[in-house]
């Protein structure tokens, strides 16, 4: 075992430095910038479009007194609901409130109208598309009622408390979901890279030298930890840049809800569970990728692998609101979804011992997957003998040598 760890370190150091000091690593680090820029641009554009589309203008075709009253009522409601909370009203002078063909006025107004309010305050009628009527009927009723009551706006005094039971539960759920999303995104982006990790060795025939010099488990472990190290460097850079950017942009960090275990432990658990998720999926991908002879084969394999990752994510995400239920226990116990389910637990439950157990459970499965990957690699790629049959499955799994 000691030799395996030493040899794994030699492989990890070679791979890690080869990646970190390559030019392509800069591109890798800049990778998240592209979706970020696209997301910012898309959301800005979307917001603008939404503002343009969603600014409704309702034409008011009431008699003079009712028109004045409803316009005054709008001003009152804006005080509490805000400008976007109440549709803009424009008076339609010279239009008969009881005109049966009032729909014709929708296209005649100087500005495009969403709908027309006609009739009287007591019996208002809204003319427009079914969708707009459904959307604004309530607000127009509220405006009419306010206009009829002629009441003054009431100022509600605010008395905020630190937290309530339901708010805490809700907030922790948000943290749990957020933690899961971050974890799965990082794992999806980074673990897939392991797929092609042995292609270089096989293409360059270096695998023969490695296989003759060190235990095969050491090659797999070394490669996995090198990629994990690279991923953690990347995440550290992204997190630092994100922190600095957020601090500069918003003069301080947003006031986030506190997870059940507290932020410091939650952050540590995020790192640990990311590592475990990465190692679990990475060891599987490394094993699958090791069977591929060419980059093309790796590309072919990457689609079902991504789908598999999504399935794991869906299971974990589905179970986040079902603490203690069978489905959540399944997510906790299935090794591949376990890190995601456990980070959700960290956000919602404050006992720590369960994380120790989960981490040991996940680490154990990582080693088992590596062992299986090594056996498959030796049998299918290196064309090595029938040691499983001879030694027995358990002995093969425990023999952490080749």
């Amino acid at each position, binding site marked *: 075992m000691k030799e395996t760890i030493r040899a794994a370190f030699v492989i990890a150091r070679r791979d890690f430095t080869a990646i970190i000091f390559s030019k392509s690593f800069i591109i890798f680090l800049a990778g998240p910038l592209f979706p970020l820029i696209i997301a910012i641009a898309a959301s800005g554009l979307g917001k603008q479009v939404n503002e343009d589309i969603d600014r409704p203008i309702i034409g008011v075709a009431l008699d003079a007194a009712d028109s004045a009253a409803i316009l005054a009522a709008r001003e009152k409601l804006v005080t509490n609901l805000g400008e976007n909370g109440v549709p803009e009203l424009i008076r339609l002078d010279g239009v008969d409130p009881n005109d049966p063909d009032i729909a014709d006025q929708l296209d005649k107004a100087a500005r495009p109208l969403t709908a027309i309010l006609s009739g009287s305050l007591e019996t208002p009628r809204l003319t427009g598309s079914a969708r707009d009527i459904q959307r604004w009927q309530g607000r127009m009723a509220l405006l009419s009622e306010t206009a009829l009551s002629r009441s003054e706006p009431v100022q509600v005094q605010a008395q905020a408390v630190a937290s309530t039971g339901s708010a805490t539960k809700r907030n922790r759920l948000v943290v749990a979901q957020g933690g899961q999303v971050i974890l799965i995104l990082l794992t999806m982006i980074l673990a897939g890279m392991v797929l092609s990790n042995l292609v270089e060795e096989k293409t360059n025939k270096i695998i023969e030298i490695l296989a003759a010099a060190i235990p095969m488990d050491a090659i797999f472990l070394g490669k996995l930890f090198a990629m994990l190290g690279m991923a953690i460097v990347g995440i550290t850079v992204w997190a630092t840049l994100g922190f600095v950017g957020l601090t500069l942009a918003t003069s301080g960090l947003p006031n986030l809800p506190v997870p059940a275990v507290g932020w410091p432990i939650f952050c540590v658990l995020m790192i640990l569970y990311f590592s475990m998720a990465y190692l679990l999926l990475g060891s599987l991908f490394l094993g699958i990728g090791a069977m591929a002879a060419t980059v093309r084969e790796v590309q072919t394999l990457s689609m079902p692998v991504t789908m598999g990752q999504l399935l794991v994510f869906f299971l974990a995400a589905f179970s986040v609101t079902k603490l203690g239920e069978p489905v959540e226990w399944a997510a906790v116990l299935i090794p591949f979804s376990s890190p995601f389910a456990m980070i959700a637990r960290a956000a919602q439950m404050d006992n720590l011992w369960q994380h120790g157990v989960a981490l040991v459970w996940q680490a154990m499965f990582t080693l088992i997957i590596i062992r299986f990957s090594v056996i498959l690699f030796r049998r299918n790629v290196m064309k*090595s003998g029938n040691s499983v049959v001879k030694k027995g499955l358990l002995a093969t799994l425990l023999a952490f040598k080749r």
Partner: protein
Amino acid sequence: MTFVPPEIAVEARNIVKRFDGDVAVDGIDLSISRGSIFGILGPNGAGKTTTLRMLLGIIDPDEGERFLLGSPDPISRAHKVGYLPEERGLYQSMKAYDAIAFMGALRGLPLAEGRERGRQMMEDHGLGDAADKQIRQLSKGMAQTVQLLGTIVHEPELIILDEPFSGLDALNQGKLERLIRAQADKGVTVIFSTHVIAHAERLCEEIAIVAHGKIPFMGKVSTARDRLRPQVHLETRNLDGPWRSAIPAECQPLGHNWHFTLPESGVEPLLRALIEGDAGIQSLSIERPGLHDAFVSIAGEAVAKKMEEDAARDQTEEAA
């Protein structure tokens, strides 16, 4: 507990390897003494590489046992072994001296020491200027030398070279032969496979001939040669006389030249009969058979021909 004598570096007992049902190695027995230069001779596809890979622990035999430096688990002896595979491979982005150090580190040599030794070895082999170059910037010959240096940087007790002369020009083949001898002089056991008989003949004390996954001969080169009788080349002035009874009856002259296998009775009775029988000796030479003749005799004409074709293909590729 199986006992392997300490003077034995490598031992294989009836090892068998099958690939998809086809037998690649069919019950090979090997015993290689420490400190010797041992050649494994055979054409491509005979089972040489598979045998070496099993001895090294890269693959496991389907049947039989193998012991490397006394251990049935070859990887556990890896730090005392150097291996140059037939298909050369190095990380292209690595610097040359670093590649040597990395190969040493794989086998337990501290990286810093490996780097120091790597630079020195490259200097000693006239490649000092290339030490800081990336592997991809080196010529094929230089890269092969770097890999060879990486094979010995950790000062192994046993060196296994799979077709080490393949792809090398004559100059580098000579260098490699000198390096192998130098290692053997230090007491290192060197095992190499080849399909060029001349290398084995020049370098090896012992050989194993591999054909169709079996070893029809293993032993000293001289023993292989001694399996054949020396050949007599005789030129006589007379074509007939009492001396004719001294040479095999079936031997027919080509002009005044006679070629035949030295009779069991030896040289002296033959000479006496030729002189006393008035053969009129113009010239006489008695040639000991070469390893090639021994190989043909042991492995068969077809195997020898295939091996010659492999060697010729190598030369063509090298020239290209």
